């Protein structure tokens, strides 16, 4: 067993946090209604909602959204490293963190790494980030596909969460951590498997959760010479409330400290869940409280934090709660199945389109495409997208260099729109239109996350990094920005 990691001066900790939940919340009742003929046991699990990605979301797009929630424009230049933790990386060999970094327009001089292979990849990465003393951005996201009518289909949800570590302006100070590595195959997913293989619940509970987690917690507390009664928030992702209470009991921690695992509200978001629950705990914590965060998966990570006065602002904004409140219920189980390619619908001839990407053109234009960076004319100061060699302002039309003009964070509104039932879209209709950006610039772009009839001329918009096209022939995925609604938490 490893030694407890003790922080040394200067203090490190968490400086910023951000979270993301897809807007759609599939009602578990609809899942149960569709599948109870095959498995009547699902009816009792048909409570609450799971946050589900739209057709144009994946772990990368959710990660970008969570990171943007954490960072304001001025924070990006200070980031020294970006870790992306996920068990559902869209690319096995093309650094996913690199895509996120370019979408966020982080500096090119940056350490990046994808962390994967276990549901505790985010907590392990967090320990590494905190131990570095650097200003690091850690973002975790998972979009796990689940087999229809399985028990997992009822418990999993899609989400992302980000934290920034550093040494200045800490909202939570890092007090230490302890990790164990135990090859317990409570579940696993082989290299090319579509779904997890899940083992028996009772065995996982008795031999896994109720043994490995308490052992790790007790070790950490002992080495830090802390009384279990000092823990104000105990975060146990992956443990249901009954198991959570049992773990707390075994550690002599008050059962009332066990944080809501958000199982009913959004489901278990895999590797992102420890960070999502941490962010939730932080916004519910008072200054000076101790938060114990557990990551479980083939062993255990336990991290201890103490909140500072700076946590109060989070408490007044409650961003995670806003996200939880901002969902739109969906009872269309068939649509969810289709979006997750669990059923193959006939999308017609337009789905035969070849979406081959010219990689050299993409490489040349990647700041434009991934970063949504246009130009600002040096002569007339007009913002424009895309940047062309000659200014788009009809009163100017002068050639010459243009300044970089980021569009992704500009306020915008609908200038014109349509809902197109002829165009190919895996969640029809394809909604798009001209978007007018505050301060100048117009872009015809796709809308996302709007219901039919929700878009109107003048509707305020925010930009979202989303999947633009899939090249199924070559296994490539393109990303660009889409215009989405402004709603609670976003």
């Amino acid at each position, binding site marked *: 067993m490893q030694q407890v990691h003790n922080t040394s001066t200067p203090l490190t900790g968490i400086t910023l946090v951000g979270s993301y939940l897809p807007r759609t919340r599939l009602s578990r009742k609809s899942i149960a209604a569709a599948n109870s003929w095959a498995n009547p046991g699902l009816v009792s699990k048909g409570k609450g909602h799971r946050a589900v990605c739209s057709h144009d979301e994946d772990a990368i797009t959710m990660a970008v959204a969570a990171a943007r929630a954490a960072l304001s424009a001025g924070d990006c230049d200070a980031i020294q490293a970006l870790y992306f933790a996920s068990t559902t990386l869209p690319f096995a060999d093309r650094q996913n963190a690199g895509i996120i970094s370019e979408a966020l327009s982080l500096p090119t001089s940056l350490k990046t790494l994808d962390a994967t292979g276990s549901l505790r990849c985010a907590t392990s990465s967090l320990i590494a980030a905190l131990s570095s003393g650097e200003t690091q951005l850690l973002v975790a996201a998972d979009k796990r596909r689940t087999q229809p009518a399985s028990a997992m289909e009822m418990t999993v949800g899609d989400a992302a969460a980000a934290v920034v570590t550093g040494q200045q302006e800490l909202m939570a100070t890092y007090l230490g951590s302890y990790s164990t590595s135990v090859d317990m195959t409570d579940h696993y997913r082989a290299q090319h498997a579509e779904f997890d293989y899940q083992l028996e619940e009772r065995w996982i509970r008795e031999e896994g959760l109720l043994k490995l987690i308490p052992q790790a917690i007790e070790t950490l507390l002992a080495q830090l010479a802390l009384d279990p009664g000092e823990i104000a928030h105990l975060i146990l992702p992956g443990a249901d409330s009954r198991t959570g209470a049992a773990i707390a009991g075994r550690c002599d921690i008050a059962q009332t400290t066990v944080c809501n695992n958000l199982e009913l509200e959004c489901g278990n978001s895999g590797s992102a869940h420890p960070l999502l629950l941490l962010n939730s705990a932080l916004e519910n914590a008072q200054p000076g409280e101790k938060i114990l965060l557990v990551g479980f998966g083939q062993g255990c990570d336990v991290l201890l934090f103490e909140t500072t006065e700076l946590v109060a602002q989070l408490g007044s904004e409650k961003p995670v709660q806003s996200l939880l409140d901002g969902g739109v219920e969906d009872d269309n189980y068939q649509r969810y199945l289709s979006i997750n390619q669990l059923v193959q619908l006939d999308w017609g*001839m*337009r789905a*035969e*389109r*070849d*979406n081959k*990407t*010219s990689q050299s*053109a*993409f490489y040349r*234009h990647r700041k*434009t*495409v991934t970063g949504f960076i246009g130009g600002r004319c040096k002569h007339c100061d*007009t913002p*424009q*997208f*895309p940047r*062309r060699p000659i200014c*788009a*302002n*009809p*009163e100017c*039309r002068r050639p010459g260099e243009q300044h970089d003009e980021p569009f992704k964070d500009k306020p915008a509104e609908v*200038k*014109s*729109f*349509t*809902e*197109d*039932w*002829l*165009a*190919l*879209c895996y969640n029809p*209709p*394809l909604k*798009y*239109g*001209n978007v*007018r950006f505050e301060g*100048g*610039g*117009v*872009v*015809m*772009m*796709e809308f996302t996350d709007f219901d039919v009839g929700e878009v109107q*001329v*003048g509707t305020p918009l925010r930009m979202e990094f989303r999947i*633009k*096209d899939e090249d199924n022939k070559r296994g490539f995925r*393109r990303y*660009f*920005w889409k215009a989405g609604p402004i709603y609670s938490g976003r």
Partner: protein
Amino acid sequence: MAQGIKDKVVIIGMGCTRFGEHWDCSAEDLIVEAFTEAVADAGIERDQIEAAWFGLSVDEQNLGKSALSLSETLRLPNIPATRVENMCATGTEALRGAVYGVASGACDIALALGVDKLKDTGYGGLPERTKGTFDDLWSPSATAPGSFAQLASAYSASHGISMDTLKQAMAHVSWKSHENGFMNDKAHLRSRTTVEKILKAPTIAYPLGLFDCCGVSDGSACAIVCTPEKAAELGKTGTLVSIKSMQLALSNGSELSHDSWDGSYALTTRVAAERAYREAGIENPVTELDLVEVHDCFSITELVTMEDLGLSEVGNACEDILAGKFDASGQIPCNVDGGLKCFGHPIGATGLRMAYEIYLQLHGRAGDRQLDNPRTGLTHNLGGFPNKNVCSVSILGHYDSGATR
């Protein structure tokens, strides 16, 4: 100082196939049919033609990227032949090439022929195509109806006209096209319909319903042009139809990226129309134009085009349309042959098909739909998207020998 094209070139023969779903023939058959009608009309031999311009739009599914298919199909005598493509203005571009060729003095007799065999693509509408290696990375996978539908949302917002009123006027446009197409035995759609049925049709791209959209068709149209002197030499003594103006305006990216355009009209139509009127010497299009053939790819396109051509005051098109101003019996008949909506829309042929109708009407040869002694007509194409397009405006009229020289 350039003097423009007015009365420098006349049309001596035209041909046009029936537009529609020609499952039983190929593009070559359509070319031959349109050409045969045109040379017979002109009263010339094939080998008197000295140069040719060939309009063909969706080449991948048709006849390839050059004009070889035209030369081979017609067994032309190794004359210069050029394929042109400029979105929905392609047919008009073929005519412009031939007209400019003759006007330049490079040749006396030239051929313009357009064709498309869109039904062989297998798509209900236009086929899926790449927008280019860069635009594919960011531009929405928009369709033609979805792009033009946005005119309606912006028009409604800009003019404070309710979508219901706008849809009534759009429905009248489509109803009129069906009335006109019903009268034309070369039209693709020859059925009458009702405004009620139009308004109840399924939505294609909000707010456009099925009847607000033209379909795609197979078809070919053809013109033979020459100098007025050559026409006289060929014994053409009666009424001659001449080119009064041919203007083209292309977007330069300002509508795409700059907010000076409000999205409710076609900027290029206004620019091309102004130039075309000036070139033709037209001061008041409402009183001087006897008929117009405009690019009604969608009902909303025809609606805003009435304003962009100056035939309605800006913001007043709905009222004029509903009052019947552009009906066959109205002040300025629009698309009396059925338009894109009902005559059909094989892209490469459409501009020439419009010229064909004006030509027939000016000669008094339009049969049941003949208007009362028209002297001047206009054709209009709008290709691409409202924020990124190619627009042509051409004016045809009775030849006036005193107009030039």
